[in-house]
């Protein structure tokens, strides 16, 4: 049976005003998870919020049996999560959903927008010699850029030019994409639309990690419907990573 698991908070660290990393001890999930997958986290033992919150796996240390989440506070669930302390126990379900098909492509191009770095960080650690485009509003929102640079080639774009090139993550994509056999992306919807459009033009397969409101996270409620060319798919089971050409964004 694959019911909810307990995970112990090993470390919590704020890396921005409203963004923090939660490192959790949970050997089963740490062992099983693949980049792109997520966990569905109960934010309170009470019924507010009632539902779990889906969060991508951001980093893994399989030896220690630990994995991390990169979380931005946007509402009551993420706020409650930010109040957890080391040693607290969290109730979560996972690993859930589909992964990026990283071992089917030799030379993928990774693209992250803002907090969309969460699943791509783990992905970048998994592929060989990764190249990643990392875009954000400004320098402050380039979460974990320093760490990323230690193991990946990072092309940085900021909207205000405060770091890297001034512009959107997708501004040079049509040229950069030519050297790659696939694109793996996560970020705001507008960015994903651009990624898919450019990838289609270049005839390169794209895989994007999407978001949709969820209840169960394990395919039971049919609540997280995403429209695709093959009809509705469930984001929690058939996604969150989906083929760009198939989704109707």
């Amino acid at each position, binding site marked *: *049976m*694959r*019911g*909810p698991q307990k995970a112990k908070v090993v470390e919590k660290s704020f890396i921005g005003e409203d963004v923090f990393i939660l490192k959790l001890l949970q050997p089963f999930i740490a062992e099983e998870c693949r980049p792109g997958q997520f966990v569905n986290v*109960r934010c309170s033992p009470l*019924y*507010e*919020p*009632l*539902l*779990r919150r889906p969060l991508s796996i951001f980093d893994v240390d399989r030896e220690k049996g630990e994995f991390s989440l990169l979380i931005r506070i946007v509402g009551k669930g993420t706020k409650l999560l930010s109040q957890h302390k080391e040693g607290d126990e969290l*109730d979560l*379900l996972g690993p859930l959903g589909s992964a990026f098909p990283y071992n089917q492509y030799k030379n993928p191009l990774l693209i992250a927008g803002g907090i969309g770095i969460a699943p791509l960080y783990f992905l970048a650690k998994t592929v060989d010699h990764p190249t990643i485009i990392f875009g954000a509003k400004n320098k402050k929102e380039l979460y974990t850029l320093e760490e990323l640079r230690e193991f990946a080639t990072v092309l940085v774009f900021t909207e205000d030019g405060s770091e890297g090139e001034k512009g959107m993550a997708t501004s040079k994509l049509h040229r950069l994409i030519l050297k790659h056999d696939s694109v793996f992306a996560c970020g705001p919807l507008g960015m994903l639309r651009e990624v898919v459009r450019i990838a289609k033009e270049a005839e390169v397969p794209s895989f994007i990690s999407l978001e*949709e*409101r*969820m*209840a*169960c996270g*394990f*395919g*039971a*409620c*049919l*609540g*997280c*419907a*995403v*429209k695709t060319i093959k*009809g*509705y798919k469930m984001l929690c*089971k058939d996604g969150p990573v989906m083929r760009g050409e198939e989704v109707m964004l």
Partner: protein
Amino acid sequence: MNLSISLGNLWLKNPIIIASGVFSIDSAPYFPLPDIGAVITKTITPLPREGNPSPRLWETTGGLMNSIGLQNVGLKRFIDEELPRYLELSLPIIVSISGEKEDDFPQMAEKLKDKGVSGLELNLSCPNVERGGMHFGKDAEVVKRIVREVKRASSLWVMPKLTPQAPDIVETAQAGREGGADAVSLVNTFLAMALDIKTRSSRLGTLMGGLSGPAIKPIALRMVYEVAKAVRIPVVGCGGIMTAEDALEFIIAGASAVELGTVCLLNPSVPSEILKGIKEFLREEHIGDIRQLIGSLKTSNNG
């Protein structure tokens, strides 16, 4: 200690039933199957339905609104592809059926009658296209007729599921019994709305959705009490049950069994926890048989 109960001809090893819509055959590995009394399938319709546009979910204080729109593969593919896998679970399987006109119900029952299912739950909270879209479950006469025709078309155990939108839920339950129902279940979700004030439109892809979860529990419990008091067939209680204590409240109010809906979405292990809690309670209270609790509510001191 006896935990088994019977709903007319249907015997369950314990009173915990998974409600329609929160279980899919692919999600079975997430559930503690040995601790479950019966599973009700997601509602099946005669033809496949793709369901409603997203967003299909909205969270409210203590509640969940959904507008799934009865997405399902249709009766044929259900029987061919899904049902065999359901039957492998070694659990009583109750198939939830619905349709767009009265005839759909007996026709589906007919096709399911010799397929090994333990019974049918009739989902009457959906629009009757022959009647301008009014939900079947709001008209007691229609409920009686549908139950009667379903019983005629098959010898299956049949349980109409009542909608809280019915003008008088007790009357609807009575109608179900008169039609020959083996039990009644209640409640389905409460019709509800939530708006995005910026866009001045619904938070869901449809204008309205069904509200479930702990928010509705006190109302559902009252309805179960009223129906169980008035109607002489077994009642299955549903609506906001989250804990063993909640389940016991429904049983004390008169339910012979309970359905778990929303709670399974946040915690699919919950059937085990509830079963454990019920056992502990019975032990503490020195009650040897859960059936002694059914309808044991004392109403003497208060009107």
